[in-house]
């Protein structure tokens, strides 16, 4: 374990000492610029520290020293990684992620995939926009001896064989690491922070620095799980302890994963900020002289207290309450529904405009995102804040592989976001922005509910057949990966909630959370919990929604409710009695033909509503391409619905889910075409400017 654990032991001791100290519980504000530390000082510690004493897998433990030069945007760093082989096999090579090389040039896999998705902006970047990370020296310490392995480092491309991609480095060791054996690797590196790509980088004097250090992959029993950097996926790594010292210009505010332990001023106008965090699987940080720093505390009768630290853009002053309340909502509802947030602190980063760093999660720290003009009745920044705070649970604690199964955390979290948002912000309204995206206009006529939140069905509909969800996420079509990852999952989780009820689904999620916190679950693990807790074999459901790209579309094809008329021979045996269809009164025969237009199968209800409001329901297994239902009653039917309770939220065409005898379609069409007429007249007059 060596130096890392010696350092972390000191940190743990500090944490224990500080745990009893007074935390910044009251609302406070610290101006960023000019807050120069005169001497080394300890930073006030949170009131609530890690409370769960359960042993956790500390596999990848880092001690990092890094220095940022804002002028050149260069980072020089040294890390000591103490890594334990937690697999069942000896391993003779190590693999590292070098994410910054994804933006080294246009030949990287990340850039190629972006181009494939239609993003050709890469060629417009300036020379100073590109980033890189170079390993300068790599040594391994064994039995007290330091062995230089720098010359052995080679780049590999396990996913696509792209020889130009340098986002994964392989390090052949001089000696295999046996199961449960640890090895200490010292890496000196230099890198340049990019102009923001994929939510990490710099603009002006705002730096958001993530995926920035050489990070070891995850060794599984089947070998290394260390994917190249892809355009459509995020990250995967092992839990461990991070002990990080960051040197930045004095007066710059620093926010980072973990707790600030100490700030030490240097002799060259810089200050070193020391952060420590245990039991996390990544470390990100941000620095800027412009941040406003505010703190509040989340308190709850049954959940651990959490110190919330908000780094706010000055132009968003006045929105601090919205950020804190949204974070509170996430901690409260996720805590009550799934399980407690164990770290005792969380940092909310309000990203700078056009930093491109908004809406991203890292352990104990996340970026939200707002606008200078942020109307009150639009859930912005609340939506993104709840979502990213929620990722502390789904990603931070339950740490599935985002390269391969990004839907597992993104989908679950987006579903939970909508649910939490509905508790505190329902309804909220649609907003559109005009004049270069600066001027908002709120559509109070278009309220968003949990169903329509994030326009999930609309976005899923456009991408429904592009990929089956079971395909590894990094192999999704880059242009529609988010629709399959986020929106499809949200829709089928909503469907599952309506099938099983919230109580059951909540127990599924909380059980899954409890079992898989601080671990790396796979989809089958989630499905197994769902089957177990629901007491049903839901394989058929997951086959449809997860293992297939088929779409659901059930619809009413025929809906008639007519007097029963008989024409032709109505005589008995041996006699002939011909009648004409003249009956115009009761009884009435109502006929409903329901079709399955899509390929996917789901059992649905069919409901007919009569004019006297009597309702008749049938259950259809949904297997055949069509089926017919008939009923005879003394009154006519007025309406027929397939899936009347909207259980199947994945149905891509809901308009055909119902039919009425007297359609209001013409009235609706007239109304909306007249609204559109005014728009067109105004458009013509606006362009009349030219005459």
């Amino acid at each position, binding site marked *: 374990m060596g130096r890392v654990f010696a350092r972390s032991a000191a940190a743990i001791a500090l944490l224990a000492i500080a745990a009893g100290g007074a935390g910044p519980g009251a609302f406070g504000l610290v101006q960023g610029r000019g807050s120069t530390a005169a001497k080394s000082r300890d930073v006030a510690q949170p009131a609530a520290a890690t409370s769960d004493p359960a042993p956790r897998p500390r596999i990848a433990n880092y001690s990092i020293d890094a220095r940022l030069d804002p002028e050149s945007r260069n980072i020089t760093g040294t890390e000591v990684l103490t890594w334990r082989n937690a697999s069942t096999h000896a391993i003779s090579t190590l693999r590292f992620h070098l994410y910054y090389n994804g933006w080294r040039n246009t030949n990287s896999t990340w850039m190629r995939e972006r181009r494939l998705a239609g993003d050709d902006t890469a060629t417009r970047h300036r020379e100073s926009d590109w980033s890189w990370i170079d390993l300068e020296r790599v040594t391994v310490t064994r039995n007290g001896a330091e062995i230089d392995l720098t010359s052995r480092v080679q780049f590999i491309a396990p996913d696509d064989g792209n020889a130009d991609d340098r986002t994964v480095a392989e390090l052949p060791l001089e000696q295999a690491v046996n199961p449960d054996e640890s090895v200490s690797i010292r890496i000196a590196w230099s890198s340049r922070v990019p102009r923001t790509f994929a939510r990490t980088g710099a603009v002006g004097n705002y730096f958001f620095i993530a995926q920035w250090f050489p990070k070891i992959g995850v060794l599984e029993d089947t070998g290394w799980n260390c994917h190249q950097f892809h355009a459509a996926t995020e990250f995967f790594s092992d839990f461990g302890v991070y002990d990080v010292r960051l040197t930045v210009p004095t007066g710059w505010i620093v926010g980072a994963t973990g707790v600030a332990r100490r700030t030490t001023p240097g002799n060259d106008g810089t200050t070193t900020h020391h952060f420590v965090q245990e039991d996390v699987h990544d470390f990100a940080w941000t620095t800027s002289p412009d941040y406003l720093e505010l703190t509040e505390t989340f308190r709850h009768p049954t959940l651990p207290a959490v110190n919330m630290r908000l780094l706010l853009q000055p132009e968003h002053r006045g929105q601090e309450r919205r950020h804190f309340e949204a974070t509170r909502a996430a901690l409260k509802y996720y805590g009550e529904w799934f399980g407690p947030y164990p770290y005792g602190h969380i940092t909310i980063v309000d990203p700078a405009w056009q930093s491109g760093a908004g809406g991203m999660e890292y352990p104990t720290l996340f970026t939200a995102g707002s606008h200078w003009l942020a109307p009150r009745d639009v859930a912005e920044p609340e939506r993104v804040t709840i979502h990213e705070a929620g990722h502390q649970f789904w990603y931070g604690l339950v740490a599935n592989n985002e390269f391969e199964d990004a839907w597992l955390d993104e989908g679950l979290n987006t579903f939970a976001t909508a649910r939490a948002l509905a508790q505190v912000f329902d309804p909220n309204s649609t907003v559109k922005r005009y004049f270069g995206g600066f001027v908002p206009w709120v559509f109070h006529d278009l309220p968003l509910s949990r169903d329509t939140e994030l326009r999930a*069905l609309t976005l899923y509909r456009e991408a429904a057949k592009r990929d089956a969800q079971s395909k590894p996420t990094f192999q999704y079509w880059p242009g529609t990966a988010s629709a399959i990852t986020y929106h499809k999952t949200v829709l089928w989780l909503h469907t599952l909630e309506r099938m099983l009820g919230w109580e059951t689904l909540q127990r599924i999620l909380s059980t899954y959370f409890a079992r898989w916190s601080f671990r790396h679950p796979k989809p089958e693990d989630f499905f197994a919990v769902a089957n177990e807790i629901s007491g049903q074999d839901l394989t058929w459901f997951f086959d449809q929604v997860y293992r297939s790209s088929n779409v659901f579309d059930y619809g009413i094809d025929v809906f008639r409710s007519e007097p029963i008329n008989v024409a032709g021979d109505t005589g008995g045996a041996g006699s002939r009695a011909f009648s004409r269809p003249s009956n115009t009164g009761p009884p009435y025969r109502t006929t409903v033909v329901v079709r399955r237009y899509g390929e996917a199968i789901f059992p649905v209800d069919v409901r007919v509503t009569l004019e006297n409001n009597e309702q008749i329901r049938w259950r259809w297994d949904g297997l055949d391409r069509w089926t017919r239902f008939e009923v005879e009653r003394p009154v006519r039917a007025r309406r027929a619905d397939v899936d009347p309770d909207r259980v199947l939220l994945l149905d891509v065409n809901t308009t055909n889910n119902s039919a009425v005898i007297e359609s209001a379609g013409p009235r609706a*069409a007239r109304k909306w075409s007249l609204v*559109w007429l005014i728009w067109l007249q105004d458009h013509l007059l606006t362009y009349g400017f030219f005459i």
Partner: protein
Amino acid sequence: LTVTTLGAFRDGIRRVNQAPLLVAGMVLVTLLIALPLSIALRGMLEAHLGASAAGEIAADRTNYEWWEEFTAQATGLGTTFTPSIIGFAAVMQNITGLVDNQPLAATIAGATVAWLVIWLFLSGGVLDRYARQRPTRTHGFFSACGVHFWRFLRLAVMAWFIYLALFGPIYAWIFDWGYPRVTRDLTAERSAFAVRTGAYVVFSALLASFALLLDFARIRIVVEDRRSAVGSLLAGVRFVARNRRRVLGLFLLNAIAYLLLIAAYGALSPGAPRTDMHMWLVLALGQAYIVGRHYLKLLVYASETSLFQGALAHATYTAAPTLVWPESPAVETITNAEPTAAR
């Protein structure tokens, strides 16, 4: 000077008020262009709703889910059926569409060109009517339209190239080259918004300047019976240059009137219609706003004509101010027939 500008504005109001049929006629022209497209859209919406119960929600309030479903399958005209058509958002959308140089759907672009050509044709008669300040009757109105249309068309061809430059390389220079460079390292949205507003002001000033030149070129074509598009444009430039303060003042008065109108519509606009009764209210308010916009459009013509005639009066105008005596078309015809009238 202020009085003259204000006087022209007031006189413009008087001239527009004297000819309410012109306002009604122009409103009708716009309606006749827009209505067939609205009917076509109505057909699309009706077909998509079919017998669905979604129609009931869409009829009584806003059915956003159906709306998105419709948009997802819409083509052509249907793609313009977005939430931005609701209430004041329509105004925002149309202005931002123009100043942000957003492409138009082919059907809408076609309708817009047709509307512009028809207005180009009619504007000769409109200017002639406002210059003469007396009824020109149907024959006189359309005669003036016919006489000036081809001159206006030549002017429009020249203008087309200028606008092509304005919305092509000049727009690109301001918004695609300059704006990103100025804002590249900005981290505050409000600063960027200020820059963008500045860019809008610059671009709008260029547009407005050229539009003013064209306005006075057209006025000189009508009032002075000019035949040369180039000559009239240069004459327009000369007039604007010599009377820039008055022209600018009048432009600002017209711009303020426009801003007041859209502000009033913004304040009163009730959003999406709900019940049938509410729908008619929304329609009535919307049409009142559209009539107001036509009125202001014609007020620009009338007030600029008034300013020109007030600033550069001479006896040989083709479309002269009211003849005092004998007020007869025969006398006017003789006057117009004088060789000097063409100057």
